[in-house]
């Protein structure tokens, strides 16, 4: 018993202490991965805040955006043009989704809408592969994929750039929500649909805008992940990674998505490296979930979510 405790509780920490530079690398890796989780989670939060829809298809939107971008680049479009066209495609997609999926389901229960986005998820997956093919594609956006040493730690330039870009996007979104008219409108809708309608904000416009923004965020997330691991089906799996982030951060909080992403990213890497070997490794698939679940039982509303008072 004491042995086991020693193994589980003391051993990993001794490991950490014995090689702090490596620990630093793990943490940095976690932060950078976490940034990308945050970016995906943000797409969820944006849509959830404004429409109360839990968009399961966000991950596939990331894949779809990346596939479109790579497909256009492969057909010889210049980078800038490809980005513009991809953005247009994502905005068009938002229009179609609003018209075909959301509007007919506007007054349905949330769980029905959630299931509809599962349907959307599979439709987009098939559609994306049909348009652009299912092969793994290389995505080169011109950021060198090189590592350098910094304070005894190895840092990868591509990952660092991805992290910085993710941080910038997050900052822009925060400003967008706090300072701009449309951002405030979005928040108004999030708080109360009827109130928003009564001050003259058309719901469908809001939905199109918010799904478009989520689509644009998906492009960024897709580019970052695609540059790192190639554009391929498993990109959509990162959406599943973003779900624990949401549980941790709360479905409605931009700050929660960011912080949640970082916690999951770092927690997952540390767990995998230091505790994973104790149980045979490859715990990445569920560790984040268990972390989030444990948290959920303590604080059902997430880090920044407001306490849920049920109205009777």
């Amino acid at each position, binding site marked *: 018993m004491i042995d086991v405790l020693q193994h589980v509780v003391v051993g990993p920490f001794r490991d950490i202490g014995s090689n702090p530079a490596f620990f630093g690398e793990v943490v940095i890796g976690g932060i950078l991965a976490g940034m990308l989780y945050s970016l995906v989670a943000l797409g969820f939060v944006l849509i959830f805040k404004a429409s109360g829809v839990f968009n399961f298809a966000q991950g596939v939107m990331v894949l779809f955006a990346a596939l479109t971008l790579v497909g256009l680049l492969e057909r010889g479009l210049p980078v800038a043009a490809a980005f513009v066209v991809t953005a247009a495609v994502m905005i068009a997609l938002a229009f179609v989704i609003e018209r075909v999926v959301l509007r*007919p389901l506007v007054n349905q229960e*949330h769980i*029905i809408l*959630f299931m509809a986005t599962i349907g*959307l998820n599979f439709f987009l997956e098939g559609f994306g*592969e049909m348009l652009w093919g299912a092969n793994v594609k290389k995505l080169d956006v011109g950021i060198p994929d090189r590592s350098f040493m910094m304070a005894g730690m190895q840092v990868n330039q591509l990952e660092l750039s991805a992290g910085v870009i993710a941080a910038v996007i997050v900052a822009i979104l925060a400003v967008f929500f706090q300072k701009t008219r449309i951002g405030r409108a979005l928040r108004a809708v999030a708080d109360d649909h009827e109130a928003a309608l009564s001050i003259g904000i058309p719901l469908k416009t809001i939905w199109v805008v918010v799904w478009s923004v989520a689509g644009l965020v998906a492009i960024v997330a897709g580019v970052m992940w695609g540059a790192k691991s190639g554009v391929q089906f498993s990109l959509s799996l990162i959406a599943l990674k973003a779900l624990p982030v949401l549980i941790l951060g709360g479905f409605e909080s931009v700050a929660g998505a960011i912080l949640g992403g970082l916690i999951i990213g770092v927690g997952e890497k540390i767990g995998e490296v230091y505790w994973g070997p104790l149980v045979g490794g490859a715990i990445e698939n*569920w560790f984040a979930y268990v972390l989030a679940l444990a948290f959920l039982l303590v604080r059902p509303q997430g880090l920044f979510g407001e306490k849920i008072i049920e109205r009777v």
Partner: protein
Amino acid sequence: MIYREAGQFKTTYASDQAIFPIVQDRVVVALGVLAVFVLPTRFANEYWLQAILIPFLIYALAALGLNLLTGYAGQLSLGTGGFMAVGAYAAFKLSTAFPSLSIVIVFLLSGLIAALVGVVFGIPSLRIKGFYLAVATLAAQFFLIWLFNKVAWFVNYAPSGTITAPSRTVLGVTVTGPTASAAARYVLALVFVAVFALIAKNLVRGRIGRSWMAIRDRDIAAEIIGVRPLRTKLLAFAISSFYCGIAGAELVFLYLGSAETLAFDIGLSFLVLFMVIIGGLGSVLGSFLGAAFIVLVPIFLTNAPHVMGLSLPVAFQKQLELMVFGGLIIFFLIVEPHGLARLWQITKEKLRLWPFPH
């Protein structure tokens, strides 16, 4: 005028409460049950049994299980594959540890073990609802699969890591293992699904089903009537997982023959969810219709183009399949949330009035 209920008066509550209150229905169902037992075993070839009918029956059982939880009790689960895996691995362990134990008992015990696991993962349902719960069940899915993959004890330390159905007999007929005939496996799967469909129907039309639907439709109103949310939801998780567990055991023992965890991955969870949504949430019949639909669509997409003289690339078919499933889910949720079962009901009502329009 074939399908008429005029002249059939229900004189007791008992006859009004019956599952099939109309005589024609009862006759059709009785004949149907007889037919599904006899006809395929006599006339269907191995391909039909193995590729279509057996998986259909097994998926129908799993869909029934998920429908009890999601359709009736309103708790969305994405962990079906994990709970099915529990049943499969439990059946493997039980049947190899106790070779003389009847395979029917093995299946039932595997269901019970899956039910226990289901209860454990259902506990968060008290505190979390809706998609929070869906995410929590995903945790069950990933964790269970990882566990079975990782712990060699579950596969009796087989280096290949696969579980293989041993040969077992029921009433002297080999029903599992490589030597079991497809017809024997079909009949066993059919017996299970028929019995458990009846039980499911009994549950949902009685006290327990009403408390599930009450929690689903309006939890606060249910509580003040005396429905205890945790107990009710956990019962739903237990029974649902019981069904899924048996379906998982059948998947390996009556269908795949051997399997590793890959057979129970998240794709299976989604597949069963599709069956429930397309077939009809909160409908026993819908579980069957949904399962049939999901089993037939790929076969249709593979073969129909040939029949029409077209030739589609295989990859294109698969993509089309995804699009069809996804599109239909959205379609049904918008147009007919009660799925194929409701469409069937509408057809029946039309038949009842036929040849008059109203």
